[in-house]
């Protein structure tokens, strides 16, 4: 049963008659809209719209009728709606009194022109610079709060900090360990494959030791933690922001930075170096086992070679970066969380943004460290 609605125009007694018939419902609106648009509307005449054939009417149908009436009137016609079934009168009145509004034109941004492209590029650049400035400001705010805490150390939330250490540190050990182990395996295999051509398989151990201790252990841990905990920080604090919990904290005289940000910052700052050490160990373990299997370098040989390749400084060069990376991840994660507006959609958007930004800043900082270390010749 496909409902049908029609409108037909005819000339009777020197006036134009439009006959509307059938079911003027939203399901027929597309078809009606087309026939109304193809209708040739007269000008400066008396037009009767005969509605006696309208069996059913809903507000979409009523809108189409009134739109037609409006268009006819705009062409200088005298319009009369006649023979409407009385039961539809209130609906037509409702739509006429409140619902007859032309949709406003949507503001269309000029996306597809060169100027539009440059404009967007400029806008985005300014947004990014502003955000960098804001994150620096936030870092300052957190530093001031830490300074206040030094005066009154009892206000440090010890239990919250310990909980964060467990959640972001201890609970991340399996995934960080497993991935580092696998990266060690891959590195050993690829390194051995290339170095064998020169008969220098034994230097696989040097490759493993230096790359894992200096770079891979700490970068891998930081990236996993940014994805795992940085996003969680934003989502947790953002959801609290949506529920007005942050405002509630403020009205209770509690500083959200002190209650929410510092435990996360300290928790991550203390555990990320430990995680990096663990990742280094697991990476070397994976590399060592792979060397044994693929290169016949047994464990004592591996360790001897490793000892000649790396020093304690190599380990420290990696681990010393961890607190900086931890601070970046925690600050960006919390900053974006506090930036959430009162909509659920912004939680998702800012969580993504927080992960991307913290990984970006981690890698930029790592590059900066490389330059500094090469300048001081470590």
């Amino acid at each position, binding site marked *: 049963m496909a409902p049908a609605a029609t409108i037909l125009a005819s000339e009777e007694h020197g006036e134009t008659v439009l006959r509307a018939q059938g079911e003027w419902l*939203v399901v027929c609106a597309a078809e009606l*809209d087309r026939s109304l648009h193809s209708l040739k509307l007269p000008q400066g005449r008396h037009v009767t719209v005969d509605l006696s054939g309208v069996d059913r009417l809903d*507000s979409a149908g009523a809108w189409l009728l009134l739109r037609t009436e409006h268009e006819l009137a705009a062409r200088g016609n005298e319009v009369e709606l006649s023979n409407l079934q009385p039961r539809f009168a209130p609906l037509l009145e409702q739509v006429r009194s*409140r619902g007859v509004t032309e949709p406003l034109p949507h503001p269309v941004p000029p996306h597809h022109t060169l100027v539009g492209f440059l404009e967007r590029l400029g806008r985005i650049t300014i947004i990014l610079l502003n955000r960098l400035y804001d994150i620096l400001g936030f870092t300052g705010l957190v530093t001031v709060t830490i300074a206040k805490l030094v005066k009154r150390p009892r206000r440090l939330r010890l239990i919250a900090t310990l909980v964060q250490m467990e959640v972001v540190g201890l609970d991340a050990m399996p995934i960080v360990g497993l991935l580092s182990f696998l990266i060690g395996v891959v590195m050993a295999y690829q390194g051995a494959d290339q170095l064998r051509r020169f008969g220098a398989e034994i230097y696989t151990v040097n490759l493993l030791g230096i790359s894992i201790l200096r770079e891979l252990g700490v970068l891998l841990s930081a990236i996993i933690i940014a994805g795992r905990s940085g996003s969680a920080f934003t989502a947790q604090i953002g959801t609290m922001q949506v529920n007005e919990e942050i405002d509630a904290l403020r009205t209770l005289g509690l500083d959200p930075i002190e209650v929410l940000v510092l435990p996360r910052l300290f928790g991550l700052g203390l555990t990320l170096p430990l995680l990096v050490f663990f990742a280094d160990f697991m990476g070397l373990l994976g590399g060592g086992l792979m060397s044994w299997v693929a290169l016949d370098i047994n464990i004592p040989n591996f360790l001897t070679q490793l000892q000649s390749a790396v020093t304690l400084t190599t380990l420290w060069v990696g681990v010393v970066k961890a607190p900086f990376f931890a601070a970046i991840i925690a600050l960006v994660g919390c900053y974006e969380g506090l930036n959430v507006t009162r909509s659920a959609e912004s939680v998702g958007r800012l969580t993504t943004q927080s992960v991307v930004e913290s990984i970006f800043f981690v890698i930029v900082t790592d590059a900066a460290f490389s330059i500094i270390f090469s300048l001081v010749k470590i």
Partner: protein
Amino acid sequence: MADAADTDNDCVIRIRNLVNAFGSQVIHDGVDLDVRRGEVIGIVGGSGTGKSVMLRTVVGLNQPRSGGIEVLGRDVLHMTEDERHELETHWGVLFQDGALFSSLTVAQNIEVPLKEDLHLSERLMAEIAACKIGMVGLPADAADKFPSQLSGGMRKRAGLARALALDPEILFLDEPTAGLDPIGAAAFDQLIKDLQSSLGLTVFLVTHDLDSLFAICDRVAVLVDKKIRVATLEEHLRDNHPWVHDYFHGPRGRAAQTAAH
């Protein structure tokens, strides 16, 4: 659609022996309810008596433990995907805080149900959306705003506009006036009453608001003792059940009665 109306049954929602329970906690224990075409029925009850659960069960968001529910003569609990999809175009639901899609503008929210199956042109969809926005009393420039830019009352009106997008026969409202100021709440009541009479809607209204009950409901269903007591307001006012008596004769109940008379 028309056929359902033409048959002799004038009952758009028929609930029989409905049992809802979460774990061992029984919420509804054998509830019967008939909602007649064109009436406004108010569902009231204390907190936790399952008013919203009742609404969610009827629209199929909650699977009851047992019982039968018919909407427009069709069995809601045993239907195919297609039948359900077809039935869903005959009702509109307004959730407590509007439940607007936060990534879409108000106009786009209203266009969501219109985009399904109807093949309307962009222009006509925008026109219908603007028409609904006007009908629920929102200013025309609300169309391009996002839900987060609207006040609570405006979000509810926008939610109502979306619920009305397909001109449904039944309108389910979950606490429509909660969180509105008295003027906004009274205006919303009046709006529902106007739309109900002009569009010929059947309204299933879950509410806490006694003023709404007295202002717009034809009958009231009180959820109490895991059962339901359906009657007109006058009859409820004479009811001797302690909770029902306290509810309608408490200070707020009396104030609402005086306001209504």
